[in-house]
Structure formats: structure tokens, C-alpha cells
């Protein structure tokens, strides 16, 4: 992998890609929503200035040259002052402003992912060997296509009225709900309507922006499913990229993935034993990585952890439950399974306790999926709620024009809680998969371990 030339590093490319995307989106938006387009460009400009000053300041600091203080002062005035001036200007639209501000970060994120996948710092245009694959441009293109679709679709749904028409959107919701009544729509919409605090993700923003589109309405009502799909495809995509051409001497990403899988296998294997882990690791590892991806998705702004809904966690817990019971019956046999449920009565006291022990064990088995799902849901939802509370407090302070009080301390606290959220995501994914392992271990025969441990 060649080193980037000094003037054209990854930041330059990311910024250029985000400028292209911003100008394109602004051009699309400009005829119908001129202020949205202007706000988007303003946000993009602020973020661009921020990056430029940051780079200069870091350069001055690393080369131990003077003048950094003056530059910091200029940056404070220009960037934060500009942001505050924009916010106090009545005409500005917040959502496009935030989107424009986030675009360079998104492009930088996509570019760094691209670099991590080993694509290398290639130019945007001269890159014949790399087809579609997560560069800043393709990410921006996806966003642009989404926006174009959203902008074009009112023609399908009716007159492009900006004002909210609850009646028409209700009918669309009804139509969209008919094709599959089995999906947990009531729960999702109940979450929505009772106003359980949630940060707006891009589906909500899209829906607010264009409430008449049936597709967007459907997506908005099934957010949990959509985000679970996104996480699943992301997970598949990363694994596919990493293992596309696996080598004996692994590259960066292959090495990372192999390390993660191997350490997870070691942890679960330490509980389950060498013999069983070979057979059961696929589901345990899949649970761990899937839940981890879903949890981590919630940290990205504009995304949502699908595990902050009980629907998904209950589904995962039920899968685990059925798997464990299936392997229990298969390993112990029907009689052995019933014997296990009855607490393995061997003597008179055991048989006498049977009417008590059987319900206790059955209830214990049934409590496992409830406990698994509630634990995951409660943790992730709790973290999300915590962050929402702090973001809400920040927004209230900004509304009361106490920006100086709001932004540095409150945003710092929020960032701190987001780091905590990262930790929670990893730990909860680990706990879920390890508890599944333990439940499986209780069901599997393990005579070969028993005597040694009792002697020791």
C-alpha cells in the first residue's frame, strides 16, 4: 500500500467527495426548497472550515511552531461563531444544516473504512480496478439517490404539499400495513406514538420531510426491521470483504476478523469444551457478531440500535431458546430430557420432590429467553435514553440561547456517554452469547469433565 502524497491525503479526498455530494444534493433541492439547500451548504462550509483549521493547528503543534494560539482563536470565532450566527438566524433549517455538517464526517468515515479494507488511497476518478465499494463518492451517490427518490416520489403519492396531512398519511400507513400483518407493527407504532424519547434517525427525518410517500412511511413504521437488515448486511459485507481472498499471511482486515473470531471461540470454548464448540460455535459467534453490529450501529448519528426494541431481542432470545431445547432433546433423548427437567430423581427423596421440581425447572427454562431479551433490550434502550436526555437538555439550552453554556460542557458529557455506550454494546453482546453458551452447556452431557472437576 503506497503512502499518500503529502498534499492529497485522505482528508482532502473525503472533503472533496463531501463537497461534490453537498453541491449535488443542494442542486437537487434548490428548486423546491431553497433554504434547505442553503442550510446544507452552510453546514458543509462550517465543517470544511473546521477540518481545515484543525489540520493547520495540528501541523503547527506537531512541528512546534508558534502561532497556534492565534489560529485557535480565529477558528473559535469563525467556526463556532459562524455556527451560532447561523443558528440564531431565523430562516435556517436545522435538519439540512446538521446534514451538511455531518457530510464531511460521513465521507471521512467511508474513506477510512475504504482504507481499512485495503483499497488504498486512490484518486476518485482514476481507479479502474476498484468497482463499487464504499468510497466517499459511492456513499454520497447512495444518499443522493435516496434524496432524489424522496423528492421525486410525491408525484406518485399526490400533490407535493409540504404541510402535514394526517388523513392521507394514515391511509397510506393502512395500505402499507396490509401486505404483511405478521410484522410487529403495533409495537413499533406504539413506541412511536407514546413518544418514548428517541433521537431522530434518518428514516424519521425522511418521513418528516416527505410524509406522503408510501415507501418511506412503510420504512418508517418498520424501523427496527430496517435497521436490523442494515446491520445484517453490513456484517455480511464486512465478512465478505475480509474473507474474499483469504491468504495464509492475512491482511489487515482479515487479521482483525480472525483475531475477533478466534478470541470469541476461545472464550466460548473455555466454557463449552473442545468437543462441543466445533459444532456450536457458528450460532454462538453469529449471535455475538450480529448483536455487536446492531448495537454499534446506534452510535453512528442518524442510525438506531435495533436492539433498543423488545421485538428484535425477543426474537433472538427465542431462537436461542429453541436451539438450546433442540440440542437438549437431541443429546439426552426424550426420556433423558424429561429426566433432566425433573431434576434427575434417583432416590426416594428425588421422586417425592418431583411435583415441586418439575414446575420449577420448566419455569426456569421459560425464564431464560425472557431474561435474555429483557437484559439486552433494557441495557441498550437505557443507554439510548440517557443520551437522548442529554441531547434534549442541550437542545433546550440552545433554544434558550445559552449556546456557550450548552455546547462545550453538555456535548462533552454526551460524548462521554457515547464512549460508555460503546463499552455497553460490546459487553452486552458478549453476555448474550456467553449466556447462550452457558444454557447450552447445561443441556449437553459433560461426563468427561465432571469427575475431574469434582476430584480437584
Amino acid at each position, binding site marked *: 500500500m503506497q503512502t499518500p502524497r503529502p498534499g492529497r491525503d485522505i482528508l482532502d479526498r473525503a472533503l472533496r467527495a463531501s463537497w461534490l455530494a453537498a453541491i449535488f444534493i443542494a442542486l437537487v433541492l434548490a428548486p423546491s426548497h431553497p433554504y434547505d439547500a442553503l442550510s446544507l451548504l452552510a453546514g458543509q462550509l462550517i465543517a470544511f472550515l473546521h477540518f481545515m483549521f484543525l489540520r493547520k493547528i495540528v501541523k503547527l503543534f506537531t512541528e512546534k511552531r508558534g502561532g497556534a494560539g492565534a489560529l485557535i482563536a480565529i477558528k473559535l470565532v469563525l467556526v463556532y461563531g459562524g455556527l451560532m450566527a447561523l443558528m440564531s438566524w431565523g430562516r435556517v433549517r436545522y435538519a439540512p444544516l446538521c446534514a451538511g455538517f455531518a457530510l464531511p464526517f460521513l465521507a471521512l468515515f467511508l474513506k477510512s473504512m475504504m482504507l481499512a479494507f485495503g483499497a488504498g488511497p486512490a484518486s476518485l476518478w482514476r481507479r479502474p480496478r476498484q468497482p463499487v465499494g464504499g468510497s466517499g463518492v459511492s456513499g454520497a451517490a447512495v444518499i443522493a439517490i435516496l434524496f432524489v427518490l424522496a423528492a421525486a416520489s410525491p408525484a406518485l403519492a399526490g400533490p407535493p404539499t409540504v404541510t402535514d396531512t394526517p388523513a392521507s398519511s394514515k391511509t397510506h400507513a393502512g395500505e402499507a400495513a396490509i401486505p404483511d400483518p405478521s410484522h410487529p407493527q403495533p409495537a413499533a407504532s406504539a413506541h412511536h406514538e407514546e413518544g418514548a424519547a428517541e433521537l431522530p434517525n434518518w428514516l424519521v427525518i425522511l418521513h418528516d420531510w416527505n410524509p406522503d410517500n408510501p415507501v418511506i412511511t412503510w420504512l418508517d413504521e418498520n424501523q427496527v426491521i430496517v435497521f436490523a437488515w442494515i446491520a445484517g448486511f453490513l456484517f455480511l459485507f464486512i465478512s465478505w470483504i475480509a474473507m474474499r481472498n483469504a491468504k495464509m499471511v492475512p491482511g489487515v482486515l482479515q487479521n482483525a476478523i480472525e483475531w475477533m473470531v478466534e478470541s470469541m471461540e476461545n472464550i466460548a470454548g473455555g466454557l463449552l469444551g473442545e468437543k462441543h464448540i466445533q459444532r456450536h460455535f457458528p450460532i454462538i459467534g453469529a449471535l455475538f457478531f450480529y448483536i455487536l453490529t446492531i448495537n454499534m450501529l446506534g452510535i453512528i448519528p442518524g442510525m438506531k440500535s435495533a436492539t433498543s426494541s423488545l421485538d428484535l431481542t425477543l426474537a433472538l432470545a427465542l431462537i436461542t431458546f429453541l436451539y438450546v431445547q433442540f440440542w437438549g432433546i437431541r443429546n439426552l433423548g426424550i426420556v433423558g430430557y424429561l429426566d433432566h427437567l425433573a431434576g434427575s430423581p434417583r432416590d426416594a427423596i428425588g421422586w417425592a420432590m418431583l411435583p415441586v421440581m418439575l414446575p420449577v425447572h420448566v419455569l426456569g427454562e421459560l425464564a431464560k429467553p425472557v431474561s435474555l431479551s429483557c437484559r439486552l433490550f*433494557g441495557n441498550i434502550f437505557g443507554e439510548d435514553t440517557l443520551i437522548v436526555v442529554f441531547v434534549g437538555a442541550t437542545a433546550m439550552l440552545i433554544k434558550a440561547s445559552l449556546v456557550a453554556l450548552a455546547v462545550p460542557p453538555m456535548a462533552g458529557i454526551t460524548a462521554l456517554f457515547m464512549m460508555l455506550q460503546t463499552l455497553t454494546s460490546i459487553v452486552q453482546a458478549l453476555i448474550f452469547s456467553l449466556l447462550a453458551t452457558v444454557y447450552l452447556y447445561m443441556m449437553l452431557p459433560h461426563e468427561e469433565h465432571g469427575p475431574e472437576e469434582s476430584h480437584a
Partner: protein
Amino acid sequence: MLFPAALGLGLPIGIGLAAIGSGIGIGFLGKGAMEAMGRQPEILPKLQVAMIIGFGFAEALTIYAFVTMFFLQGRIG
């Protein structure tokens, strides 16, 4: 006493009590694990896994209270 008022008073207290219990449990677990690690550092990886599982069980009790609060929250107002 009105039902919503009782609920509004009781839910936070219940969560607090559950958190006290979980905190004591996690504290004991961490204490035991730390002492064992100090005595026998080579057992660390196995111990950490067991400790995290124990944390999960202890913490789950607060989470149950939290989930209960979440389900009953709508009936306060």
C-alpha cells in the same frame, strides 16, 4: 391514593432499590474476582469470563425493574 400517583412514587423508588441490590451484588463479584486475580494471575482469562457472566446476572435484576418501569410508565400520566 390515586393509582397514577402511587405508580409515579413507586416506580423510581423500585428502580433505586433494585439498583442498590445489583450494585451490592456486582461489588461482591468484583471484589472476589479481583482478590482471586491478585492471588493467581494466571487464571485471569477464565475468571474474567465467569465474572462478566456473573455481572450479567446481577445486573439483569435492575434491568427487569427498568423494563417494568418502561412498561408502566405510560400509565402514570
